[in-house]
């Protein structure tokens, strides 16, 4: 045991070597490589968002969107260029940023440390997941190089995705690669959480983030294969001439939508659960309180979501021509999601009660997230009600609703986590003036972008329209939204520059700057060496990661 540790330490001391990162099986390095990949995807997908907003500022074509998708010769129309940008923005933000950011970076870096484990259960499979993810990023980026750029949105609905001249195969292969990475990651982390908890650590003593990761990976392992099947059938239909989704040959285009959303609604919880987990960790530490009603949040909240999440997908198909009884049945199940989510929210709020709250940059993002959850969650209620959805569906109200949860709340929880565990990863602090300035740009910019979209959404502004000549009255709202996007872009650039600067020259911090009681802070140095813990970790019967009162 100690001999292995010595060898590992000796390897690290010899300085930076590229091969050590490329061939690494260390969960911490894999986590950081996931972070770099997902942030790269975030930047490119964010650039697409900026292009989309700029195109929508004015009625009629600006033509600028063609430059965003690297079509300098303007060989494709503005409409198609806009659709390519929409495709890349959606697919990359969900598949290559949010899911890998939360279940790749955060889970990899934190779960073994929080469990008191030396690594994940299958370190080499972990490395395979990572490089499959990077391969997916490369395939996704080919979008900009091929002449027949994919333009199928992140949903890829047939028959359009089959009849389009765009390259649907790139979409399918991106999903395949990310799907493989997700399934392998799910096996790895479920085994790690079940079998590699430190001696003495019971299920009810795990960090909330570990629990939420467990929930997210349970969803991945059950539902990802369905998505993989759906896009594979799509590939067969387009390139091998089969007719699974071709009504003229006995197929059914709605079959695809059902399969797609059977995965892709649960995917929302693959993102939401770990995001909530990160918020819990930061709130408990900054309020120096145990999690309020831990068991209700775990067994009512997380497990409750796991039970309900597979029975709600038709709310994405309320206007798709599904049978009436199914549209009503899944309205009720969808609304009932408010019960487990409500329990988690109450638990998060309650953790602040009688706390000793100190505010750092991570906590500021968490505070914003609390309000984002309210707006994003509550605006989901009219969308869940079938009859109200008949008007709201496919408008920018939907667009604003899920951006509040996924685009803002989940993204900010990841930003908060990066700031919060920055001292853990680098031994330095990223909480400085630049971070605060970036924070205000991000928060104000995104609010300016999405509130106008709620308002014109109820008025009927359709989603996925690059032009809106019939609704000139919406133009001022689009202008405000674009100004917001530009402010956000400044914030994001400042924030990332701040991270790079802080990683190299930031203020050095103590091992446990936030005075947390969780194992990753109390039982190892910052950053932790190979093998994570100098001494094997063992916890007592009444130990919890949140025992601030003792």
């Amino acid at each position, binding site marked *: 045991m100690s001999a292995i540790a010595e060898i590992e330490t000796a390897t690290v001391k010899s300085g930076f070597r590229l091969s050590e990162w490329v061939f690494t099986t260390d969960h911490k390095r894999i986590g950081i490589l996931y972070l770099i990949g997902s942030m790269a995807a975030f930047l490119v997908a964010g650039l697409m968002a900026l292009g989309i907003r700029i195109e929508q500022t004015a009625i009629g074509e600006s033509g600028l969107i063609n430059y965003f998708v690297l079509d300098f010769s303007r060989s494709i*129309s503005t*409409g*198609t260029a806009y659709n390519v940008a929409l495709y890349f923005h959606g697919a990359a933000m969900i598949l290559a940023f949010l899911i890998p950011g939360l279940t790749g970076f955060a889970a990899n870096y934190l779960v073994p440390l929080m469990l008191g484990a030396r690594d994940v259960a299958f370190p080499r499979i972990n490395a395979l997941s990572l490089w499959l993810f990077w391969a997916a990023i490369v395939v996704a980026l080919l979008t900009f190089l091929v002449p027949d750029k994919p*333009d199928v*949105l992140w949903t890829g*609905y047939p*028959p*359009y995705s089959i009849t389009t001249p765009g390259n649907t195969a790139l979409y399918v292969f991106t999903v395949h690669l990310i799907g493989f990475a997700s399934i392998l990651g799910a096996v790895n982390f479920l085994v790690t959480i079940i079998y590699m908890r430190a001696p003495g650590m019971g299920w009810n003593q795990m960090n909330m983030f570990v629990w939420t990761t467990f929930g997210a990976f349970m969803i991945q392992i059950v539902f990802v294969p369905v998505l993989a099947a759906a896009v594979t059938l799509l590939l067969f239909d387009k390139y091998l001439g089969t007719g699974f989704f071709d*009504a*003229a040959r006995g*197929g*059914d*285009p709605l079959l695809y939508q059902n399969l797609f959303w059977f995965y892709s609604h649960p995917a929302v919880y693959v993102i939401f659960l770990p995001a909530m987990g990160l918020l819990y960790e930061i709130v408990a530490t900054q309020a*120096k*309180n*145990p999690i*309020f009603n831990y*068991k209700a949040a775990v067994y009512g909240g997380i497990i409750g979501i796991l039970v309900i999440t597979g029975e709600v997908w038709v709310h994405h198909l309320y*206007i*798709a*021509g599904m049978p*009436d009884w199914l*549209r*009503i049945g899944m*309205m*009720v199940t969808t609304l009932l999601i*408010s*019960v487990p989510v*409500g329990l988690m929210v*109450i638990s998060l*709020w*309650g953790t*602040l*009660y*009688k*706390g*000793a*709250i100190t*505010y750092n940059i991570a906590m500021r993002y968490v*505070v914003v997230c609390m*309000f984002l959850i309210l707006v994003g969650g509550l*605006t989901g*209620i*009219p969308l869940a*009600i079938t*009859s*109200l959805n*008949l*008007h709201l*569906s*496919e408008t920018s109200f939907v667009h604003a609703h899920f951006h509040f949860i996924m685009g803002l709340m989940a993204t900010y929880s990841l930003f908060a986590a990066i700031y919060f565990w920055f001292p853990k990863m680098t031994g330095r602090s990223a909480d400085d003036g630049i971070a605060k300035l970036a924070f205000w740009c991000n928060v104000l910019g995104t609010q300016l972008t999405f509130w106008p979209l709620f308002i014109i959404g109820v008025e009927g502004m*359709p*989603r996925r329209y*690059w*032009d809106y000549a*019939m*609704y000139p009255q919406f133009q001022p709202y689009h202008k405000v939204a674009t100004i917001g996007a530009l402010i956000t872009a400044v914030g994001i650039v400042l924030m990332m520059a701040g991270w790079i600067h802080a990683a190299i020259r930031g203020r050095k911090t103590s091992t446990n700057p936030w*005075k947390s009681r969780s194992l990753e802070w109390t039982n190892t140095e910052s950053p932790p060496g190979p093998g994570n813990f100098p001494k094997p970790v063992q916890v007592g019967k009444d130990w919890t990661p949140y025992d*601030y*009162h003792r």
Partner: protein
Amino acid sequence: MRIWLGPAAGFIGTVSTNAALAEAAKETIINNPTTAWDHAWTEVLIDLFIIGGIFAAVAVYLLIRYRTRDPDAVGTAAPLNLEKALAWALVPAAIFMADDFLLSAKGWSLWNIQRTVPQNAMEVKVTAYQWYFEFDYGNGVTATDLVVPVGKPVVMRMTSNDVIHSFGLNEYRLKEDIVPGRITHLWFLPDRPRETDLICVEFCGNSHSEMTSKVKAVSKADFDAWMTKSLKKAEDRRHLKLAVSSETAPAQQ
């Protein structure tokens, strides 16, 4: 003690607003899916503002009240005993569920209005193409804009010729997809003379944003005049076609 004042105010607010709404509902007879939508939307919005308001107020209170500048201070919340833990799980769960079922019931009653096609409805067949709509009145008259008489319910029976489109009627608060291989339906009540936009709201490719038509709700007299004219035009076209084809000349459309 102070922590309970917010929810209490919210509760009183709910009761009084609901009473006012119930009073208002008595006076209106709702059978138009469009006005019924607006009514339900207002009710749900009130519900959302109450829930959101309570949670936001509690959050603001907690975040300010328990703020400290002492980095060594720790929280003082007492651990929940079993009764309190159960109460904090079951009571909120019951309240959320009650609200869910209330909203479901409201949603379902609106749904019944939206999906119960009146017996006297006028039927129009819709075929969607990349990128336009075609309306077929069933008597030989076809059009690319939809002309309907005010006061008569109209039911659309819709199918697509190529990819999935959607029939979006913002001003009537309705939409339904148009799917190849299926016939979907949607009905609305043109309640007053006006010209509104029909837009495609299911992503259908390059010119998705330009796939629009007009819905012209006109008086009964105007509609009849339009229909007579269109019928005549259709008849002429048919005769012309017959004449042309009998001379075996190339088709001129």
